[in-house]
């Protein structure tokens, strides 16, 4: 419970992301002419250490999921490097990726579309093991039951189909599936956003227990600053595809530097009626879009170091 931040002890990061760029072309017209481009991820760099939780926060559409998918090799980055355990993944041969996929797993936001509706829970849990040929059917079954216990679900439920479960239960099953291969990295993409607070708290506690037990590195994507404050060792704030501020949790929450980080913090409703904000003037500004003209060249603003673990990007003029 009292483990201090692991980065000081472990030398090498498990995941090293450097200058990751992912853009999506929007094609229109007769010959698929590129009429615009979504700069979903621009020049993003960060590390994740074993046993550490890095939280990635930001508004909807700012590119959090794209970062996650790029790490998971589900999206092809335009440029940049992603190393896992020192091995480069971008452009890596299939075997390397396959090996990586045994060690990294992802949990998705929507518990309703994350499970194959035509597979029983047991089949869903066993499938990853089958893919990697981990033992006989009996051992895999035993492991599935074990996993169910781990996420506090009764093993009898294994024969059920997903539609028989509530969202929270499904999310726990997804976590169980992610654990099936004993991963070293879990990417949780808004994995608790759709859950009730009580269940959300349970799931977060569960994740933290698992992380502690198995020294899992966790990339925790969220837009809920209050949740992030509880779970994260370090926090990266994304805005329009870029990381605008990154640092250890206490620096970010205690000493936010970037105006966007501050805004994000100020909008969190405080669950205490005695601390109601007074006299806030209703705003009506909207979130800008990351869509750009095809010939747009992004200007890269420098990052400034605030402390040994805290960096902030310079604010664009105007």
């Amino acid at each position, binding site marked *: *419970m*009292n483990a*201090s*931040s692991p980065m000081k002890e472990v030398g090498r990061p498990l995941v090293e992301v450097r200058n990751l760029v992912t853009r999506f072309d929007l094609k229109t017209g007769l010959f698929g002419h590129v009429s615009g481009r979504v700069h979903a991820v621009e020049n993003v760099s960060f590390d994740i250490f074993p046993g550490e*939780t890095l939280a990635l926060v930001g*508004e*909807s559409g700012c590119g959090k999921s794209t970062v996650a998918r790029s790490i998971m090799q589900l999206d092809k980055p335009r440029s940049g490097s992603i190393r896992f355990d020192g091995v480069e993944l971008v452009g890596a041969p299939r075997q390397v990726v396959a090996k990586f996929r045994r060690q990294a797993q992802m949990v998705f936001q929507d518990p309703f579309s994350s499970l194959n509706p035509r597979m029983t829970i047991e089949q869903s849990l066993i499938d990853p093991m089958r893919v990697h040929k981990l033992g006989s059917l009996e051992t895999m079954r035993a492991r599935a039951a074990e996993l169910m216990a781990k996420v*506090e*679900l*009764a093993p*009898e*439920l294994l024969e059920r189909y997903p539609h*028989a479960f*509530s*969202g929270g*239960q499904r999310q726990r099953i997804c976590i169980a599936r992610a654990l099936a291969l004993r991963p070293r990295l879990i990417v949780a993409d808004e994995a608790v956003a759709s859950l*009730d*607070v*009580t*269940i*959300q*708290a*349970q799931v*977060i*506690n569960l994740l*933290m*227990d698992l992380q502690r037990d198995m020294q899992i590195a966790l990339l925790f994507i969220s*837009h*809920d*600053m*209050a*949740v992030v*404050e*509880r*779970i*994260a*060792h370090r926090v990266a704030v994304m805005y329009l595809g870029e990381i605008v501020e990154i640092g250890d*949790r*206490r620096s970010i*929450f*205690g000493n936010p530097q970037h105006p966007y980080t501050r805004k*994000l913090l*100020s*909008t*969190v*409703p*405080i*669950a*205490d*009626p*005695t*601390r*109601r*904000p007074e006299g*806030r*003037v*209703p705003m*009506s500004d*909207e*979130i800008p879009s990351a869509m750009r003209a095809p010939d747009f060249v992004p200007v890269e603003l420098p990052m400034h170091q605030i402390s040994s673990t805290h960096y902030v990007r310079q604010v664009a003029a105007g």
Partner: protein
Amino acid sequence: MIPANSAPPELPEDVILSVEDLEVSFAVRSRAPFRAVRGISFTISRGETVALVGESGSGKSVTAMTIMRLTEYDGAAITGGRVLMRLKDGKVADLAKLSEKRVEALRGAEISIVFQDPMSSLNPVFTVGDQIAEAVVHHQGKTPEQARQIALNTLKLVRVPDAERRLDQYPHQLSGGMRQRVMIAIALACRPSLMILDEPTTALDVTIQAQILDLVRALQQEIGMSVLFITHDMGVVAEVADRVCVMLKGEIVETGTVYDVFAKPRHAYTRALISAVPRLGSMADKDAPEKFPLLVFEPERQLAEAGK
């Protein structure tokens, strides 16, 4: 239809809505009807904001929709209780027993609702202006021109920038936050005395959510209507509510002022709920992440799940 022989229901002067022992069931073929709301009671006073909280599926939306008499379209029936409402003309009506025709006249005019998902709650093929003005034309018998003017004013009221232009736009041309404002404008257009907001911010971005909450608060001060605010986010409750009703499995397990409920939750479920709420700043002096100090509310929970 109001039974002719019963005496007209009465309400205390400052109460605008009183739900008494309301029971709602869904007919499920070949099985016993599912009781989604099991005899709940609460009141809302003039100008007051009541928050209805509870876990997903506890019956919050069903309660709200039943007050609007919309659940019957989903196959539900009011199996007991009353929903008394003080109308603008001072009379008191039992919404649970009104005829379809009379309910139609009340909906939108006396009592209105804003739904959770602004993306799907607006009709994609009609302009924003039409959708706001429609209810005005219908309830107040205004001409289309007058209604348009009212729609414009309402849009301005909900702080939609560039309201004239927006009036002729279609929902898909607006952002999520803007659409939720339009939904609020629709609900406000006829100046109802009670507005129900069913999780109006859950589908929105964090920064937008704050804007909407600010707006609701400001509007309530400006127009002075009562609000029934449904949410499962205790942070939101803390920000907007005067009083809180906590729902669990179709029943209200606790009612009280927002201060009392947060400070001294009495019911075990409320305590569990409040303990699970992440509070910004609560970790300010901690080095490492910490788990939630969970209070287990139902020891038989796992059993129940296993047997489901």
